[in-house]
């Protein structure tokens, strides 16, 4: 048998093999029509995600307005300007991150797989950078905030002793917010690292890697 004949035999065998696999494969699949149900939930989830995102942006805008109001109310007091400046910087960085990366997270799923892989890698890198920056930012804000809070308490000791709830709400609330943000960003960082490792493991030693 010539070399060409052998090649033809092999091709015919492979085509028959593929046809047989296709037949078996295409016989699989459920018969339930879940489309309407899936889309109804997707629409609900999509709207919920949009509401949550809008809520986050509104919260950033609200804290920015509050900071500006505090600056005006304190007639540009140096310590208030310094503290609110840090918060405003944080808000600015967060909003930039939100509008440049997070806003179109699901929309990008329509890209080709290679482009999506590149985008996912970029997302992991940026999200990790953001989580680290947010955690460090919390520490950076907390370092001057703690002595400042002590100074405020000492300076207005009589008022706080007369109405202790003010101290609990003010200082306790601030401490709770800082602790929660710190713990959440730390957890998110660990989760992202695990996801990134798994993602790369699945793509390892392949043409996509």
């Amino acid at each position: 048998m010539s070399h060409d004949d052998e090649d033809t035999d092999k091709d015919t065998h492979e085509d028959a093999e593929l046809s047989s696999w296709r037949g078996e494969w295409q016989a699989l699949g459920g018969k339930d029509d879940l489309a309407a149900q899936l889309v109804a939930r997707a629409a609900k989830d999509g709207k919920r995600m949009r509401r949550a995102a809008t809520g986050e942006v509104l919260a950033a805008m609200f804290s920015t307005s509050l900071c500006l109001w505090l600056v005006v109310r304190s007639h540009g007091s140096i310590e208030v300007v310094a503290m609110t400046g840090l918060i405003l910087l944080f808000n600015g960085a967060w909003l930039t991150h939100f509008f440049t990366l997070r806003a179109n997270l699901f929309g990008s799923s329509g890209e080709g797989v290679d482009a999506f892989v590149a985008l996912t890698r970029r997302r992991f890198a940026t999200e990790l950078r953001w989580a680290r920056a947010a955690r460090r930012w919390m520490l950076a804000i907390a370092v001057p905030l703690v002595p400042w809070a002590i100074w405020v308490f000492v300076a207005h000791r009589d008022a706080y002793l007369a109405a202790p709830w003010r101290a609990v709400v003010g200082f306790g609330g601030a401490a709770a917010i800082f602790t929660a943000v710190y713990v959440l960003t730390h957890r998110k960082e660990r989760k992202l690292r695990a996801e990134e490792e798994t993602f790369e493991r699945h793509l390892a030693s392949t043409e996509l890697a």
Partner: protein
Amino acid sequence: MDERAKSPPQDESATRILRENARQLERLVASYARSEADRADLRQDVALALWSALPSFRGDCSERTFLLRIAHNRALTFIARRGLPTDEIEDHADRVVATSGKNPAIAYERKQRESRLLAAVRALPVPHRQVITLMLEGLSHREIASVLGTTENNVGVRANRARAAVRVLLEDTEATEGAAS
């Protein structure tokens, strides 16, 4: 109020695309997720991604290609998030929805064969699995390249490797089962 007025066009298009490609989507989901709970999650994830991405769809490819792209992309994210291991060929005691068959023995045999093929596909590395699942759906190399956003040559290389691997996995399973019986 009529039904059309209640559901926006985005919902209608997404429902239609999912309905027209339901079986393909189901097979694709099954090639990435074993348990029914995982399949339901991935299915929903794909539906959400389709619903979100539809407004940006400009018709530069067919709706089926668009859906398959989305499904493969979401599957990648899904396995990264879940950390699902690639299945071993031996481990495929899976509930497969088999085709109808009046003879239970024939139906059982078909179900076993289909389960073996599904298990072999699941055992492949992700890039090979992507290509073989699309080939089994009947897509040409050009269409697969369009879904995956890569070149036809790249698809050809992956397809050859994937087919060779599936062949070996199926032969191994048959040999193991033959020895056991």
